[in-house]
């Protein structure tokens, strides 16, 4: 039985599978299952039962999200299905792998999603820098049209779908789903107020679902092999597999598909090969730049949404960034703050003004001019920029490494002040 549904076709040393090879390996099997007699409501129920959670960061249950789209009652108006392929979270490198490695898998996932919510148009909102993904997706899309998996009356189901690739031009906030919708409409990509939620009023005011690339790549397997198979893949409470990555000073950095519920220790030691010679693990961000630091004492925690939440962080994108004992934690957090300050969309005051202030203070620390008063201001910003204080989740994301870093590395901040220099230089 298939146990690595996301990566079974991926081998980066060769081009991705074309239509014929992809089909030979059970590809587009789900469309046959659907045309064999699954209604949109049936597919929705299967996805709900599977327990699939969104892989874009928030971990929201996918079936539940889809169920908020108003029922069509036989007179479907326009709805849109949107793929969030804007991957710009620092330290995150999983969606690129899926799109470059197996573009047909994503297309098959999109077709399933669009069929379920009865959307006849899907946009892939792709990061502009991902040139190889763009080329490979476009090639796969044209193969799918040729085969009749896209276009009119797909597989005799009466369902029509067009998939359009939209390439962006480099702004992190476009990954926030409502900012993404504004960007697609050709507007400045500021987030929108919620409610109304996109599921009810999204792209051009129509019901819209936004899902992450990896989320959608889970769907073909769920439909083709069923819920029991899917739930049997994982080792813990959360279902399925997930891509997990490691960057930083480890022996073998990389990205692997593993069962949810694998321990962090196993990921770092078995797959990553342990820290580089002479270095020790000091801390790590478990799922990209907007997650809270975790410590070596958390290594036996399972890679599972709830387990990681229990120790005060988030699984989020599942791509870990490692901090070793010879790299300055203040410098690392400063680097993240510069990113968030630069990528603030400028719409609300705490984020627009607060993040550059925080960034400026980190510059002072790095050049040995940080003071106790500065440290106090940093602590205050963890509160000022926290959840509920800003218009969207970008600024609260920045406070995750900031707040946990101030707590875990207090001594390092103090040493920068006392020694008037970076002790790691």
């Amino acid at each position, binding site marked *: 039985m298939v146990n690595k549904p996301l990566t079974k076709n991926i081998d980066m040393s060769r081009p991705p599978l074309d239509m014929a090879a992809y089909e030979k390996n059970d590809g587009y099997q789900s469309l046959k299952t659907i045309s064999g007699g699954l209604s949109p409501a049936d597919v929705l129920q299967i996805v709900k039962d599977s327990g699939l959670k969104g892989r874009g960061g928030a971990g929201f249950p996918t079936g539940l999200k889809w169920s908020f789209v108003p029922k069509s009652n036989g007179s479907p108006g326009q709805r849109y299905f949107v793929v969030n392929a804007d991957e710009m979270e620092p330290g995150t490198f999983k969606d*690129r792998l899926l799109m470059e490695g197996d573009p047909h898998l994503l297309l098959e996932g999109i077709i399933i999603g669009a069929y379920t919510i009865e959307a006849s148009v899907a946009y892939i909102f792709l990061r502009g820098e991902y040139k190889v993904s763009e080329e490979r997706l476009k090639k796969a899309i044209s193969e799918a049209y040729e085969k009749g998996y896209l276009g009119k009356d797909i597989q005799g189901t009466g369902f029509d779908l067009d998939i359009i690739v939209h390439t962006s*031009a*480099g702004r992190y906030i476009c990954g926030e789903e409502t900012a993404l919708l504004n*960007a697609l409409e050709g507007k400045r990509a500021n987030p929108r107020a919620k409610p109304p939620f996109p599921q009810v009023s999204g792209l051009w005011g129509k019901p819209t679902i936004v899902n992450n690339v990896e989320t959608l790549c889970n769907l073909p397997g769920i439909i083709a092999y069923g819920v029991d198979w899917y739930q049997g893949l994982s080792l813990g409470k959360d279902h399925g597999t997930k891509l997990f990555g490691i960057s930083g000073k480890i022996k073998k950095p990389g990205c692997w598909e593993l069962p949810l519920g694998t321990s962090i220790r196993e990921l770092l030691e078995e797959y990553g090969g342990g820290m580089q010679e002479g270095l020790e693990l000091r801390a790590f961000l478990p799922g990209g730049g907007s997650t809270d630091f975790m410590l070596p004492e958390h290594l036996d925690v399972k890679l599972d949404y709830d387990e990681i939440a229990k120790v005060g962080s988030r699984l989020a994108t599942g791509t870990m960034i490692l901090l070793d004992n010879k790299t300055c934690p203040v410098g690392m957090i400063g680097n993240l703050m510069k990113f968030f300050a630069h990528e603030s969309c400028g719409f609300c005051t705490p984020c627009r003004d607060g993040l550059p202030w925080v960034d400026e203070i980190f510059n002072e620390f790095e050049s040995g001019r940080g003071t106790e008063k500065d440290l106090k201001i940093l602590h205050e910003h963890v509160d000022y920029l926290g959840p509920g204080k800003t218009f969207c989740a970008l600024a609260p994301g920045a406070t995750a490494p900031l707040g946990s870093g101030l707590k875990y590395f207090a001594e390092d901040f103090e040493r920068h002040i006392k020694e008037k220099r970076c002790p790691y230089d």
Partner: protein
Amino acid sequence: MNNNIIATTSARARILTDEEIAEIDHEIDLYPDKQAVGLEALKIVQKHQGWVSDESMLAISKYLGIPISDLEGVATFFNLVYRQPVGRNVILFCNSVSCWIMGCKSMRAHINDKLGVDFGETTDDKEFTFLPVPCLGDCDKAPVMMVGDDLHRNLSKESINKIISEYKTRS
């Protein structure tokens, strides 16, 4: 539509090439309204002209019937829309966290030494523009940069020297 634009400035619009128009028209077919095509049009013009001049902005605004202020609002929002001329090759250098941990600072200094330009600058011979870019999604192969459309991974001083001389001789 065009009364959104001050007549005297609209007169400064350049003429879009047939190729640009064909590509923009192709995009128009993919969206329910023309405003959505603004960014695509900016990118198409940039691909052909190297950057987006005021005259190009005016031309796109006229062609799509989008107020110039709205179009400028989009152009200035995105990191990869260049409103000033850039060199023949744009270096997009990742300076996000994983690349920082893996020593991108010294790679940046090396490029700076070698080309005599830092972030935001273009070499005197107009060969290279050097820009920072957020995480390029290849963090397990850090440090990373793009030159034009090509990605270069696991950078070292030696590999940077090689890359730069390759692009210099490519014409």
